[in-house]
């Protein structure tokens, strides 16, 4: 079994250019991750701000020895959005395809298939692998039973799965962040930028349930699969994704690295993670075949 790889998924929230730059430069210098995904996944209206610091960020990450993957939009509808993906395909960076459009434009070039392309079974896995996917990030909804099947017989195809951070539940054409602020997507004022970890939506009886992030909906809780790292590794997962949240991601990455490398127990690491992750509840239901919003106490490995 090859050494497990730790990755930092694309930043899903809309942070200012300065904050984004500072975040990635610190990741480059200090985070024990092997791979960093950069680029905008949620909304093309955010792209100018994201790209204003991207070249510098990529250069610094590469200089620090990180593999850099450029993530692309999850929902592509306009000719301009298609054109932007076409430009990226012409570049030299490895791409994460989050819509079938990107796979088509890559025309067989090696790439990563992101979690927004439905690969739920071995048949779909083999199709995308046949079109050039060297790594597949499985959707967060996948449970352990399915994951064992898809990852266990993936051969040379690398398998990635998100093990930390709010989990993506849906993408939409409509912007709910704008709607919640009495705006529309076409005149949104990029209002999603005011909430660095998204906007919490409660049920009408006061239970915090969802996180709105522009056109994307995420879980309210942070998916924390520390206690399941051993299970995932045994199942054939090769790459373990941390999704950036507004907290000390260097410390989070260090904890996960230590557990993956067998230098620290999962339980002890969970104890150290608690104060870092603040008030945000922990969830892991999807992997256990339970409602995704739930927390199932992981059994000791």
């Amino acid at each position, binding site marked *: 079994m090859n050494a497990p790889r730790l990755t930092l998924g694309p930043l899903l929230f809309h942070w200012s250019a300065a904050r984004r730059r500072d975040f990635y430069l610190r990741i480059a210098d200090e985070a024990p991750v092997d791979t960093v995904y950069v680029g905008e996944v949620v909304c093309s209206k955010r792209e100018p701000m994201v790209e204003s610091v991207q070249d510098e960020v990529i250069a610094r990450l590469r200089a620090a020895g990180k593999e850099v993957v450029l993530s692309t939009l999850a929902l592509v509808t306009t000719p301009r959005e298609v054109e932007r993906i076409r430009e990226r395909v012409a570049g030299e960076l490895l791409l994460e395809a989050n*819509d*079938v459009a990107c796979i*088509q434009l890559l025309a067989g070039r090696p790439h990563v298939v992101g979690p927004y392309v439905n690969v739920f079974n*071995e048949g779909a896995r083999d199709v995308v692998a046949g079109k050039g996917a060297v790594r597949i990030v499985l959707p967060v909804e996948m449970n352990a039973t399915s994951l064992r099947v898809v990852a266990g017989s993936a051969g040379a195809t690398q398998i990635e799965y998100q093990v930390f951070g709010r989990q993506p539940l849906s993408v939409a054409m409509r912007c709910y962040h704008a709607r919640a602020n009495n705006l529309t997507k076409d005149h949104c004022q990029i209002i999603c930028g005011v909430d660095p970890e998204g906007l919490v939506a409660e049920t009408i009886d006061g239970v915090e349930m969802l996180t709105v992030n522009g056109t994307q909906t995420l879980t309210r809780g942070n998916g924390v699969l520390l206690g399941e790292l051993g299970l995932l590794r045994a199942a054939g997962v090769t790459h373990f994704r941390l999704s950036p949240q507004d907290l000390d991601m260097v410390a989070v990455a260090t904890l996960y690295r230590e557990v993956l490398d067998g230098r620290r127990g999962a339980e002890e690491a969970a104890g150290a993670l608690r104060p870092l992750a603040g008030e945000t509840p922990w969830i892991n239901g999807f992997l256990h075949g339970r409602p995704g919003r739930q927390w199932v106490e992981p059994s000791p490995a």
Partner: protein
Amino acid sequence: MSSRYLELVCPAGTPAALRTAVDAGADTVYCGFRDCTNARNYPGLNFDFDELREGIGYAHARDCKVLVAINTFPRAGDEGPWHRAVDQAAAAGADAVILADLGVLDYATRRQPALRRHLSVQASAANAPSIRFYQEHFGVRRVVLPRVLAVDEVAELIAETGIETEVFAFGSVGPMSEGRCFLSSYLTGLSPTSEGACAPASHVSYVESGGRVLSSLGGVTLNSFARGEPAAYPTPCKGRYVTHGRASYLFEEPVGLNAISILPDLKRAGVTALKIEGRQRSRAYVAEVVGTFRRALDALGRGEAVAPAGALHGSTEGGKETRGAYQKGWR
């Protein structure tokens, strides 16, 4: 039927509904097998093999086509039911299958090459390169377009890809990119993508409290409404949520999609077929909606004006209507 204004594709949740739709003037009906292979896997609905074969016989005798939706995503290690569904649709004489999963598309292309393949809305193909991917690799002949596009965007896609398109004309508004939404499994643990049921009835409950009705899914309260107030079935995207201290329909109001007033626009855009949603609805609904659209299309085909849009108010979800993403400003 090249003189047809637009092909009318109608829901058949049961064999009886199939006959109702055919008799009411459907050009085409669509249905699914009674299992997890289709996205309307609700109790009491759908077809077994013999019912499908008989239904196809009934439809074909009346010059009506039958499409079989096999549009969920197989569970890993259990692709058999989906493959069997493709083979059975072919054996029963279906005119096409409506598919979403890459693996199922691959299977159908290799094993049933003569069976026409349509791309389900569950595949969420909303741009030209995606459509070309399915055309080139799986010979897909028709795409059911996601309900997120404006009419001019639909026209551009058709012009660029040359593909046959089917668009939603009546039913619900799908605010999320379909086939990629995990909200229902987040609340219930059951996946719409692989089990075929968003907000399964077994997990829905209604409780009266203080003169109001509380609806919930998987134990999570999604709405509270006065008796008689319009309210949608409690799918997670039709619930009320509180943001900034204010309760609202965060994702979508309880409204139904009705495109009957823009049929000439859809025709001009190059659309081939109109999809009426509602395999889970009653035969009375099917008869009314299909009949109304049949008359509208026939009138348009004769060069006459279409009937007023108000004709179907009683059948729309929540009793209110929208043209959804087809009109600018919905986003």
